[in-house]
């Protein structure tokens, strides 16, 4: 059932994201083709056009990320807590499946937004010199990875996982806030927004306690030991963020299964 639900969730949201992704790549290609011209011979109008194209490109990237957050909130509120909820909640599926489906598809769009942005930067900047094996950037990275061996790979892996968990945490914070807001009669949007801020503050307080705790330990001077300490700290951040994800998920689940009140 989850697979079927995700199929329809992707169909419902792709109309928002795919055009933005397409435009980001098209504008990156446009900027790249403009930069092939010799700048000294550019007319004022051409420079102006180039400026506009770059501005639109930046706005599109910002739009992709803003839309990820807006679509996450909108799909959850309209499809589950609005009129469409009358269909969603009468489908023969468990409440977990509703949350899992929306969460995974939102995470997919968040990751795709990052990938498309990186891809567009790649389109903008890559040339034969960059791909060249002797590029000092690759050489430096290769040297660092061989120097720190497993620790460098571990930290890279941890950072990627932390970014994913943080995205998930933000998505689940939106779901928990919308569900709490839905309990509050007339001022649902305001209550949802207030809950989102409140949950954000709660997270900040917990993080600041942990940072204070970590600060008590003296920083090792040895490079290898410093990297180990960094890996442990990122691990702690991962665990705390994952704990928030679990808390937000079960708050949403509990409210949808025990306190659901569709108008």
């Amino acid at each position, binding site marked *: 059932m989850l697979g079927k639900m995700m199929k*329809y969730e992707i169909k419902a949201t792709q109309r928002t994201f795919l055009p933005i992704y397409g435009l980001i790549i098209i504008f990156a290609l446009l900027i790249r083709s403009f930069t092939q011209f010799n700048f000294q011979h550019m007319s004022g109008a051409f420079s102006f056009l180039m400026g506009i194209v770059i501005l639109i490109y930046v706005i599109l990237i910002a739009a992709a990320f803003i839309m990820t957050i807006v679509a996450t909130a909108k799909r959850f509120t309209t499809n589950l807590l609005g009129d469409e909820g009358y269909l969603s909640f*009468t489908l023969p599926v*468990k409440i977990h499946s509703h949350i899992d489906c929306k969460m995974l598809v939102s995470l997919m769009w968040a990751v795709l937004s990052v990938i498309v942005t990186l891809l567009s930067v790649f389109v903008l900047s890559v040339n034969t010199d960059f791909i060249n094996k002797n590029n000092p950037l690759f050489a430096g990275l290769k040297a660092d990875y061989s120097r720190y061996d497993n620790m460098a790979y571990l930290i890279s892996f941890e950072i990627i996982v932390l970014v994913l968990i943080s995205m998930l945490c933000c998505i689940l914070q939106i779901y928990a806030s919308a569900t709490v807001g839905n309990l509050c009669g007339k001022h649902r949007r305001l209550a949802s927004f207030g809950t989102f801020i409140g949950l954000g503050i709660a997270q900040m307080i917990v993080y600041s306690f942990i940072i204070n705790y970590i600060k008590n330990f003296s920083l090792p001077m040895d490079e290898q030991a410093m990297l180990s300490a960094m890996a442990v700290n990122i691990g702690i951040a991962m665990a705390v963020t994952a704990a928030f994800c679990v808390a937000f998920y079960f708050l949403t689940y509990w409210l949808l299964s025990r306190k659901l009140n*569709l108008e």
Partner: protein
Amino acid sequence: MDSIVECRNLTKCFPGCVALNSINLSIPKGQIVGLLGPNGSGKSTLIKLMNGLLTPTAGEVCINGMKPGAETKKIVSYLPERTYLNDWMSVQNIIDFFGDFYADFSKAKAYDMLQRLHINPNRRIKTLSKGTKEKVQLILVMSREAQLYILDEPIGGVDPAARDYILDTIISNYSKDATLLISTHLISDIEKILDGVIFINMGNIVLTASVDKIREKENKSVDEFFREVFRC
């Protein structure tokens, strides 16, 4: 007689009002039952509780012996009083959607009813009128082989000319051992198809009786009797 719906001390309170006041109710299998009451009497609240769209303040409601959940939703076909269709879909998309999620959904039956009501399956739902959307919803609901059909105001939004056709659609498309619960104000239009009625007012069940008994005992039609009971 086996019951398909069983309410025990079912209570639902909203801020400042009691929508259902500790009601006890049993709806037998295989009947067409009218849930009748004035505006704000608690009809839709009761129906939403049966579908798990609201949670009871106290008491419980059971569908075929189970509390509302994924298992009861497999056997209940529900038509809400509002439009729940996704705007981005076409009629064909929503038929595929129902086919994907409900094992008892018949696409052939749905397309047949669409054709008879002259609704083009390729049209986007966004472009349909309110009445046509209601007809599409009714087609979706009646194309299932459910054990319990719950129809909340199924003919409220359609023109009088289409009402008879819709009632015929309802009658000819539900399986005979299934139960049909219809909530409406338009009693005279539906009373010819009802086996029993439930009168509800201000969150209380006022009366449960068979239509024949009302006619025999009161010597009135259900519509006339309703007007007498709920006279303002």
